[in-house]
């Protein structure tokens, strides 16, 4: 443990090396967080089955301190979007994301969550969850194998290691704004599109299309 954390330039006396580590705040903070990323227990589609496989004995998520899957977003650190994101579901996904406490991360698992996948052209399909929620790691595949998902987790750990308490968004003075929740109208309404929609409605009918 201490090898991982120790500052390379500060020498710890031989007799204390097993018990003492001299390190930076960022390092120990990131080490603690990346070793206990609790995913939200939530499956969307086919990828969810591979996610469950990843949690079972053959692939064993507990090696990364991730086996504690929490059904409540309040207790979860990581949202694995494991399947096709549909228009009917995206309001719930955004709401769940808003309900998660900081620090929070999102993995877009599989082709559908990353960009719509094979169902992209469908009338009820959102082409990628990143249209609404910020994504940290994309895992390609349809569905990604458990190995690929594990690789995604490794990438997420790398990303956490690069963060610093001085710059992360949840330690800034201004509060983190929640993401506006999409609405289900004649089609999916992204609140960010509302000005553009109003503009269109203000134009004469002939100019539309």
């Amino acid at each position, binding site marked *: 443990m201490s090898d991982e954390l120790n500052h390379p330039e500060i020498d710890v006396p031989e007799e204390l090396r097993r018990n003492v580590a001299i390190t930076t705040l960022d390092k120990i903070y990131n080490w603690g967080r990346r070793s206990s990323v609790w995913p939200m*227990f*939530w*499956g*969307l*589609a*086919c990828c*969810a*089955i*591979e996610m*469950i*496989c990843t*949690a*079972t*004995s*053959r692939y064993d998520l507990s090696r990364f301190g991730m086996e504690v899957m929490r*059904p409540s*977003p309040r207790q979860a650190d990581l949202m694995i979007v494991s*399947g*096709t994101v*549909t*228009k*009917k*579901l995206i309001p*719930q996904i955004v709401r*769940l994301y808003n309900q998660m406490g900081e620090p929070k991360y999102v993995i877009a698992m599989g082709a*559908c969550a990353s960009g*719509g996948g*094979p*169902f*992209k*052209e*469908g*009338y*009820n*399909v*959102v*082409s990628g969850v990143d*249209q609404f929620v910020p994504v940290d790691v994309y895992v390609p595949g*349809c*569905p990604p*194998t458990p190995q690929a998902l594990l690789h995604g987790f490794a990438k997420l750990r790398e990303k956490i290691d690069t963060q610093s308490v001085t710059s992360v968004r949840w330690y800034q003075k201004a509060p983190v704004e929640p993401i506006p929740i999409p*609405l*289900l*109208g*004649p*089609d*999916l*309404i*992204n609140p960010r*599109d*509302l000005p*553009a*929609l*109003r503009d*269109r*409605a203000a134009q004469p*009918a002939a100019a*539309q*299309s």
Partner: protein
Amino acid sequence: MTDKVLDNVESRLGDGVVRDERGGYSGYLVPAARLANVARTARDELGYDYLSSVTGVDYLPEGKLEVVYQLYPTAGGAGLVLKAQLPREAPVVPSLVPLFPGAELQEREVWDLLGIRFEGHPDLRRVLLWEGFAGHPLRKDWTEAYFEEDAKPFKSRWPEGKIHRIEDKVPFRHNVAYPPDFTPDGWVPEGDAALYAGLGQVTGGGNGGDPALNTDEIIVNLGPQHPSTHGVFRVVVRLDGETVVDLKPVMGYLHRNHEKIAERNTFLMNMPFTDRLDYFSSMGNNFGYALAVEKLMGIQPPERAEYLRVMMAELTRIQNHLSAIGFLLNDLGAFFTPVMYAFEERELILDIFEATSGSRMMCNYFRFGGLERDLPDGVLPKIRELVYERLPRKVDELDRYLTENEIVRARCIGVGVLTRERAIALSAAGPVLRASGVPYDVRRAEPYSIYDRFDFDVAVRPHGDVYDRYLIRFDEIRQSLRILDQVLKQLPEGEIQTGKPQYQARVPAGEAYGRVENPKGELGYYVISTGKPTPWRYHVRAPSFINLTTLAEMSRGYKLADVVVSLGSIDIVLGEVDR
């Protein structure tokens, strides 16, 4: 069936019923006004007591809509197809829900996607999309925001290769389209009021009518994010105290427009899409679709391919049922340990699938008239080891750990009872139907492929409670092992594909309904070809979806915690429920 019997059916069905004479079509055309009477005759006098599928077709060039009903006798045998033709403007057809309550969700789906009104339906709301959605997407003249062309491959991708992103060609750069007169300010969102109003009311005093016990009436929403809804599924329950008064399933959170996309794909392109329906049993999904298209093409796969198909379908059934048992125990509170046991075996079966087809879950292994490739070296010994050594031992072990468990018995026996009559009326399929004492298995009732050669029992359990639905999965695993034993002993050498593999299947015009006994129940594909490279209509009779009709029946009068267990015992997969 001989022509004489068919004539007899025609005369029994009564006036105005004519045989469908279009080339490649079968069944009977029924005037919409007489539909209910004809269906009653078919059910009560001719024995067609099981309504398998209700779907609609938009014949845009003829300016007609058609509702197609597939009826089957639970005694076994061929089916009866009834069709009602309607005008495209304001189409109305009498609802069959009073006769066949199993039509409830299916008629709602036809209303949702094709805009056909069912007069007399108790709760005709959209089912897969949300209230307020503009248009009925499966109408042929309805196009989505990302629409490019009527048929694939799109010119933007191949062969000219002028690649563009569809996002650059649509307003708002999103997959959204609004009606031209839409203004966000004048619009009122549709709430859940209609949904809640459809729930049955509390009658009587509640809690056994004891006036000393005052119970509250509340509406509880489970899902779409809930650990025991097996995905993104939502249940709305009206409770009196803790007792369920009524329940409505709410689905569509994973509606990925499979059928609309399929009408643009070539026949072969749809094969990998079928994998993603019931993603636990992709091989079984392939099987049904291959059968439907082979029926249209009039071809048969060679012997070896037939055996390999059955082998894969039965391996799929085993791993599906193991997972189903694991997840049911999850819902009972034995969190994840039984799933670990189930998935240990499932992984070994997935290894076989991966070696054979190249993918663990999305196998895409079947082709029209055969298979994609033969078994690679070294796989057959592994299958033998599994079928003869490991699986029988491990299934018995799981059985020993779970079946006599006191909590399992206390939570399952006598809970969520579905009677024999109601199971048939509600069009339940697969293990749910058979656990209610109906020995109906498509493999036996109307054998497809080479299932008529194998010696196996149709697993039946008499009580129709959760415990029986749990036990029947063990029974079916053991029967599948019996079939696999015979397959392994008889597996011939030889070709695995009839003729040359075709990338563009030539499918003659006509209709076909191919159905298989998938692990979750009767999976049917209704395919219409007009002779073009893409299907005109492609409908999936999804067993998980239709089995959900029974959930309210299973839950009424039981406690809220039993809803979760009943749902687990149906074994749904949301990819198939919502398609």
